[in-house]
């Protein structure tokens, strides 16, 4: 019997796994990097897969990636420096 998993279901499973993984990184100064990195990946998965940004024009993809990267790097740096 062939079991097929829909793409959206797979994305949800990855998102939940990343959320559960986050719980292992609480309470250490440098874990902030891991927590924000996981958040960055989750944000991009939601935007590109669930919101179908992957089908949008390159301008929107680049704009979103740059924006999300800038914001999360800035938040990380503000906490660490």
């Amino acid at each position: 019997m062939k079991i097929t998993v829909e793409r959206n279901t797979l994305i949800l499973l990855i998102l939940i796994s990343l959320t559960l993984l986050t719980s292992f990184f609480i309470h250490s100064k440098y874990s902030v990097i891991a927590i924000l990195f996981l958040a960055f990946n989750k944000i991009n998965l939601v935007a590109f897969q669930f919101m179908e940004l992957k089908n949008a024009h390159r301008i929107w993809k680049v704009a979103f990636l740059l924006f999300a990267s800038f914001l999360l790097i800035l938040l990380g740096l503000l906490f660490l420096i």
Partner: protein
Amino acid sequence: MKNNSKIKTLEPPGGILIWIVIFVELMTFGIALIFFLLNGKENQSLYHASALQLNKSLAFVNTIVLLTSGYTMAEAIRFLKKSMMNKFKMYTLSTILLGVLFIVIKFIEYYTKFQHNISFNSNSFFSYYFMLTGFHLLHVIFGLVLLSYFYFSYNKKNEDIEATAAFWHMCDLIWLLIFPVIYLIF
């Protein structure tokens, strides 16, 4: 005709207008989180002690609820595009119910805070906490109103529903920013 098709390819899913709203909203919440962190750097012990009073388990559950609602919303749109209206309605209803569950959990979280005499005025950490999560909650409630309208009305214009779906996913994105910064990193 050529120009029209060129414009169409530039249009993101849900339309340009909703994506401008998404960028502005993310920027607004982002700036608020930057101020939250700057304030936290100056009062690190206070922010650490306050963060310990937050219920992280409920926040984790709410994250999973909201992510699952994003999944059901994406599935609803997938079936809408295939004109499978029964499945579209089923997934939209699931999204609405998950949204309601998110609100119920959030109110439980607020209620326990008020029981411990923690309010907006307790300290700057909780001012930011109530302001950011409260504004996010308002967005979720507004998203639920829009989803309920499309669930019950006969207006099934794909573009409008896709824009509403993008708005709902935006609530997901905002929460994915708020959750680590407020609940986890201090």
